[in-house]
């Protein structure tokens, strides 16, 4: 039986709807001209490096079809890497190579593929198959994340990433997205990944949700979510807030991964972050965004904003 929630209840919970997000936040605080920096991952990476925000190392860029002939030489010396469309969206078109086996490369799923097949993937990427609006694109080859062992077990066949919604420089809500077998190694909640709500003050789990239902343990690995404590939490909040300053976008989704050696790294930014984070946190964004707006009016100081965010949004 299909059940609906009443609009009054949604308002009471402070759930942010798609229409209000588009008009009152994205439309109002995200100037169109700043989108490019976010939609093009190469530009994001460059800006991040300029602002001392750590990002995965860039091995190379493929801009033209002819460059694919020299692909083998370009990849020489790298055993693991990820190939991404520069303007991809929603994790589309990302090819992760974790090692080599004789002449072939090994994908994260264990399947072996040849250099030609990687070339074909890049051809599609250049033609815009994976990109926003099907525009011609560039392919970037970047270093693999060697993910932090303390998060081991929370993700299956994929790296967990941390999504922070930052509004006017204030981290408002956060979640960790853990891939599962049913999400096919992808970190998208609607494909079956687990979303773990995180306490803004501490980086501890406040609850985990898969397919909209609360779950206690990871369905594949059995890891207990209530024991989750994301390390380097203060660095993560600091990084998210700095991204807002870097992009000039008021309402921003910041995707962060934890690297074993380098700590939190910026993976990508999103000018139209989704609403699923509210389900993972079992809490609405609207009240928090209203408080964040007040904080932003009170102070311009980076550290004070984060401190106030921790104070207001930490008490779950």
């Amino acid at each position: 039986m299909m059940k609906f929630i009443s609009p009054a209840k949604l308002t009471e919970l402070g759930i942010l709807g798609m229409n209000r997000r588009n008009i009152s936040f994205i439309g109002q605080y995200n100037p169109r001209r700043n989108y490019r920096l976010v939609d093009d991952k190469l530009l994001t990476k460059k800006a991040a490096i300029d602002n001392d925000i750590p990002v995965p190392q860039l091995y190379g860029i493929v801009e033209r079809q002819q460059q694919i002939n020299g692909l083998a030489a370009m990849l020489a010396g790298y055993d693991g890497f990820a190939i991404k469309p520069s303007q991809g969206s929603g994790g589309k078109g990302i090819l992760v190579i974790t090692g080599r086996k004789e002449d072939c490369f090994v994908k994260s799923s264990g399947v072996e593929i040849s250099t030609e097949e990687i070339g074909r993937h890049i051809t599609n990427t250049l033609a815009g198959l994976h990109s926003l609006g099907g525009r011609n694109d560039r392919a970037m080859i970047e270093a693999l994340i060697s993910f932090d062992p303390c998060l081991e077990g929370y993700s299956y066949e994929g790296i967990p990433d941390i999504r922070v919604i930052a509004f006017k420089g204030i981290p408002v809500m956060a979640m960790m997205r853990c891939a599962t077998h049913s999400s096919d190694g992808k970190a998208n909640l609607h494909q079956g990944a687990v979303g773990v709500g995180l306490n803004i003050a501490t980086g501890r789990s406040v609850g985990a949700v898969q397919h909209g239902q609360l779950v206690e343990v990871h369905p594949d690995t059995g890891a207990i979510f209530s024991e989750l404590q994301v390390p380097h939490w203060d660095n993560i909040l600091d990084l998210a807030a700095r991204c807002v300053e870097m992009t000039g976008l008021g309402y921003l989704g910041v995707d962060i991964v934890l690297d074993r050696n380098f700590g939190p790294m910026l993976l990508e930014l999103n000018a139209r972050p989704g609403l699923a984070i509210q389900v993972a946190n079992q809490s609405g964004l609207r009240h928090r965004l209203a408080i964040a707006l007040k904080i932003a009016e009170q102070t311009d100081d980076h550290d004070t904003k984060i401190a106030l965010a921790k104070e207001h949004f930490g008490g779950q």
Partner: protein
Amino acid sequence: MATPKVHIGVIAGVLILLGIGLTLYKSIVLGFPLLPGKYREVWTIESKISITPTEGPVEVDLRLPEDLAGWVVLEEHFASSGFGFTVVDDKGARVARWTRQALDAPTTLYYKLQTYRLQESELEDAAIPDIEEPMLEADQLAAMERLVGILREQSSGPASFAGLLATQLTDESQNLDASFLLGSYEDAKHLVMLEVLAFAGIPAREVRGIQLQDGRRRQTMSSLIEVYNGSSWVTIDPGTGASGLPTGFFVWERGDESVLSVSGGRNSSLEFALVENSLPARTVVGMEQRSHDYALLDFSIYSLPVEQQGMFKGLLLIPVAALIVVIMRVLVGLKTSGTFMPILIALAFLQTKLLPGLAIFIILVSVGLWIRSWLSHMNLLLVSRISAVVIVVIFLMAVLAIVSYRAGVDQALTVTFFPIIILAWTIERMSILWEEEGVKEVLRQGGGSLLVATLAYLAMSIPLVEHLTFNFPEMTLCLLGVILLLGKYTGYRLFELYRFRDLAFKE
């Protein structure tokens, strides 16, 4: 935050009030009916006179139609670029006269009129013309005498005489004399008929007019015969011999005067483009009485050329479909493949009708997806791939049309109304969606698109909606206002009430 919203509110309010105000004005003051009610078939006849000039001054005379046999002329427009133009009176008939000192290139002149048939009456009584005895060769005389003799025996009066004559002349094998006369005159059949009738001493003359056919272009003038049976005039169709005015025959002129006469030109021709519109009876009356008194009517869609009127009939329905799309996306939250693809599909449905349209669409997209999956193995560049899909779609349409036509299903011929490029993009998008998100998402978005298209089609095919959009284009302002307001709607979508349903049990 409040300011822009209030701003939009004011603009939308003004638009809606303006739309309602103009609509009410038209309906109350000008008497346009808000409900469809009784319809009249109003024909727009566009006459096209083509002339190739010779040396010297050019004069083109066109006899204008009078209100005959229940036909009422509503409006007339003349186009005369570079010509002097007057309407003169010539023995009681109106003649449009275009004049020019010299002309160096072939030219076309236009005369457009709108007319409807107030009542199905026969031609009015008129003076009986004198009968001119035809001049005949000896063998023609003999044939004429024999033919008239036989027809006199078989007929009961002038009308049936003329009717029989028409059939004899049509089916030449029936009567050798009739076929001989037709051959020796080397003239149009109705002219031979007039000669025979004159020989038999029956008053008769020609009636010229246009056989009306909706959407017909390059129609030429056709002729009927009318005979006087002693008390009234009876019209005879020289093709069939049937008496009475054929349905849909617009009477242009009675008598033998030529309709078009050109001096200073050659190869002149007169052709007609015809369009039929169903207009509410009261609107028609309004047009008749007030067409020149109110600027609003002068600037209405009825003042446009015929073909554009037909275009606008369709175009004015699009805002309704757009409103449906906005409601379904903003208020309901339905996902569609491409924002306005459903509107284009709905427009195609208007031509194909709903069920055949749905069937054709699903067949085209499914087969297209299947073929597209081969293309995806070929590793083509994006533009080539989509172009290939476009070509495949055209082939599919042709195959579908031919196969179903052979099988006797005429409905499938309407397949050509589907926008090819949109279909190609839909197939391409669905195919990528399939690879990335799986079949479920394809069915969800495809189903959503078809649902919105169906709703838009249903809304557009309501007779009241068609009536209102075409007769009260001002109402589009109201739609615009509502769409602007919906563009500022920040409430929840219906689907979000489902999406966040589990949060209801929190605490």
